[in-house]
């Protein structure tokens, strides 16, 4: 599903964010990526949807090597990957429904398909009643649910989340995690970078710890600790 081989990433300013990463994540897995700030978590995540390119090494997602993927093919890759951010990245002038539908409109899906898929996914995240509201009328947790809905509306094989609970209070965070669990239960691979110790220690999944651009720990059902 996701394979990284000897991935090395050096930024133009000299910072080495990945110093020979090797990892394999299987279909349907749920993986936490943990580590202190500046350890290379974000780079690790960004390289998966080719926001960043590795300086050397291979990253293979669904059989596509991102290191050699031509720019023209990137849209095709992104359609197989859903991305969720800490700051939601919703469009303030669009309603909840429109924000989710936007993801399908820009890949030119037929209107009937858009209607059906958006309604289905809004039901999944429990926002059917708020479809016509604007983002500024929602709570943080609801906004994040919209952003999750947008990331999965195209039924991606992988969902990548960069600290999705970072801006949310504990209770709302549990709500968001329940949704991720549901998505994972449908067979979608989830890779989630997080700082939330409680979540990692309670909802047990594979934990990958990154520090100094290296994977320092990789265990199933692991705990969150800094070390």
């Amino acid at each position, binding site marked *: 599903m996701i394979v990284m081989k000897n991935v090395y990433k050096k930024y133009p300013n000299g910072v080495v964010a990945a110093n020979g990463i090797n990892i394999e994540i299987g279909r349907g897995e749920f993986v936490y990526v943990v580590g202190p700030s500046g350890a290379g978590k974000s780079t690790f995540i960004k390289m998966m949807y080719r926001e960043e390119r590795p300086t050397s090494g291979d990253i293979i997602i669904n059989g596509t090597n991102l290191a050699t993927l031509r720019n023209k093919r990137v*849209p*095709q890759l*992104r359609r197989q990957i859903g991305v969720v951010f800490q700051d939601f*990245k919703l469009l303030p002038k669009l309603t909840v429904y429109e924000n989710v539908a*936007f993801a399908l409109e*820009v890949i*030119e899906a037929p209107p009937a398909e858009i209607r059906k898929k958006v309604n289905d996914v809004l039901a999944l995240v429990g926002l059917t009643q708020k479809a016509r509201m604007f983002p500024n009328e929602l709570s943080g947790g609801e906004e994040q649910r919209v952003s999750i809905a*947008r990331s999965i509306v195209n039924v991606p094989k992988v969902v990548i989340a960069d600290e999705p609970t970072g801006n949310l209070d504990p209770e709302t965070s549990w709500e968001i995690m329940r949704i991720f669990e549901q998505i994972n239960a449908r067979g979608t691979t989830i890779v989630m970078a997080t700082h939330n110790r409680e979540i990692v220690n309670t909802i047990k999944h594979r934990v990958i710890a990154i520090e100094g651009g290296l994977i320092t720990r990789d265990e199933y059902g692991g705990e969150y600790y800094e070390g």
Partner: protein
Amino acid sequence: MKARTLGRHVRESFKSIRRNSWMTFASVSAVTVTLLLVGVFIVIMMNLNQLAQSIENDVEIKVVADPAADETTIKELVEKVRSTDGVLEVVYSSRDAELDKMIKSFGDELSLYKQSNPLGDALYVKAKDPQQTATIAKKIDTYDYTYDVVYGEEKVEKLFGILNMSRNVGLVLIVALLFTAMFLISNTIRITIVARRTEIEIMKLVGATNNFVRIPFLLEGMWLGILGAIAPMLIISISYYKLFELLEPKLQGELFQLLNTTPFIIQLNGLILFMGIFIGVWGSFMSVRKFLKV
């Protein structure tokens, strides 16, 4: 591209034109001024070209025969000149006709020369190719019984020199203006792009193709170009029609003629519109390329 998608792109481009009304106004004005100047320049240039061409076509060689030559010799000379390579036509004018012409232009005082005409017979020679005039003149000059061969060499070359120089200066100005307008348009588009950065980011994240992201901006640039072209087209067309109406009767029979309104004005409008679209699309293309890294 699907019709629905194209419709969406067009709506998006109109939306952002309305949203950035001040920048829209600024770049449309820039295009308007540019195209107006360019258009006026083209009108002047084309008419000067027309003038140059008619002067060029009007260049003829005047061959004055030796006044001492008799009639048979003159006839032979006419035949010889007529059969010279590159000669289109030869018009013969007798010495008396030449004197009449002079009296007509310089006054009756010259009538006293009618007693003993000092002039020679004249031949007016036209070259098939005006560029060959000098060569032909030199050749005729070597024939017997030619007294003088003239073709207003210096005057013609000076005029061509002036025309060429003004054409070059004008072209440099046009290019500079076009670049200014493109720069302004690309700035407008850049502001649009910055205002919609999140939207573009999300579009790219969910897998919109580069063209999908790019086309609304190119369309926006095109509208700016078209909007900017409207006023110049109207102003130049109307002014030229008026000018033509006013000057045409006065220029009857003159060497210098204004270009006819059709098809000139239609072609000119087409060109202005094309330049507007080109400036707009190219300006926004540059800015999209730089800011979207698509």
